[in-house]
């Protein structure tokens, strides 16, 4: 069993090298969307506007943090035969919590996001991190890993959301940012940006740019 890595006898620093790596890696070098190409479905579906993307991002961060910590706490108790279904139960629970809270305090956005909040359950990033990280690591690190990967997902969909809102409807967070003079001069909003293919193209460009910056090649 490899799960009993490094016995935690001495008090490890709260933010050691390892912790920093765990939370920063998923932002760029191990970004779940651009490098692992996970969670694409929701990244295409909920990014028509920036505010919706932000709420979706926060929801995913919350779900991943909750699920990662819970699974990490239970990691030595979970029978390996049924570990996937146990992870699913925990993820579903966390998603329902987020969904209920949104419905109480952000009704409009919850309506906008509709089924996609529930579909966080099927987001491969969540299950992937539980299986790959939380099952082997202590709670604190798992929490950071959850937040890190959630942030990695969130910032990408926020960038896509911002682009789509600006070029698709000329607004940002609901405020007009493209001046009327532009429209009078013949500028038109790009209809493609409002549709899913627009997100697909943008996402492709982002993946390409990020991989090019980090010098990543597929082998």
């Amino acid at each position, binding site marked *: 069993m490899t799960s009993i890595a490094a016995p935690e006898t001495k008090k490890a620093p709260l933010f050691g090298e390892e912790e920093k790596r765990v939370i920063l890696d998923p932002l760029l070098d191990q970004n779940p969307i651009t490098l692992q190409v996970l969670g694409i479905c929701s990244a295409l579906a909920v990014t028509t506007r920036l505010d919706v993307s932000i709420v979706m991002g926060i929801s995913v961060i919350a779900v991943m943090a909750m699920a990662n910590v819970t699974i990490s706490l239970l990691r030595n108790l979970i029978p390996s035969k049924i570990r996937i279904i146990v992870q699913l139960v925990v993820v579903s629970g966390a998603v329902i919590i987020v969904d*209920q809270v949104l*419905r109480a305090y952000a009704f409009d956005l919850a309506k906008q996001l509709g089924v996609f909040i529930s579909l966080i359950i099927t987001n491969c990033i969540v299950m992937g991190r539980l299986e790959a990280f939380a099952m082997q690591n202590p709670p604190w690190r798992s929490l950071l890993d959850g937040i890190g990967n959630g942030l990695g997902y969130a910032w990408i969909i926020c960038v896509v959301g911002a682009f789509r809102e600006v070029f698709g409807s000329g607004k940002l967070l609901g405020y007009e940012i493209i001046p009327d003079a532009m429209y009078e001069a013949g500028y038109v909003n790009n209809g493609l940006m409002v549709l899913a293919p627009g997100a697909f193209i943008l996402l492709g460009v982002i993946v390409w740019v990020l991989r090019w910056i980090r010098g990543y090649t597929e082998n």
Partner: protein
Amino acid sequence: MNTKSNSYVMVFTIGLCVTVSSVLAVLATELKETQLAAAEFDRQKNVMMAAGLIERGDSRPRPELEALYKKRVKSIIVDTRDGSLAEGDSKEQVVALNAKASEADPKDANAFRMIETGFTEDGRLDAIILPVSGKGLWSTLYGYLALDADKNHVKGIQFYKHGETPGLGGEIENPEWTAMWKGKEILNDKGELVSVTVKKGKVNESIPSEVKHYVDGLAGATITSNGVSKFVLRDLQAFSTYLQKK
């Protein structure tokens, strides 16, 4: 402890399920009231949008909008048998009235219905907002159809709850489509109720009766469109006694 034994797996599963369900049950109960209040506020906003009192995406804070609703919108109870108004303005009163009516005649179990009326700043009746609801393709649609005070011209339509496919049937929420309803007439030249029908395809601008009584269909959402036509007609018929009263 042997985490591989079947009995351990059973105990673990049951324990996990019970814990997770209790957490969710407690949370759902705790949040219920806030959620209902949020849903009610959403309904009020849709009534006001249908009546043209506010625009979609009005950014005023919630208390201000709630105050506006209180001031400009009044609920009234209509006796659909003869179109007269009944005393009262709450859902409980509608239930009580219907219970009484159905005792006398079981057919009248739904005789009393609540509608909203919108008023202008100076207290003149400006809009009659009728609840409309019915089946689309996947779900029941709930919305409001607002008429001008002349009980003929459509002022607006809004759907606030549905489970149609986003981008197809879900386009019933699209402001560009709901804007097409504005100014349509529900009565024909002879004063008979014909309602407004969602056409398959585009409205032919050269036929006056079509311009008056039809709106463009939603592409890729024929069944939702037909559903809307059907239940708008049905709900208008239900209120016909009231609507024909001058």
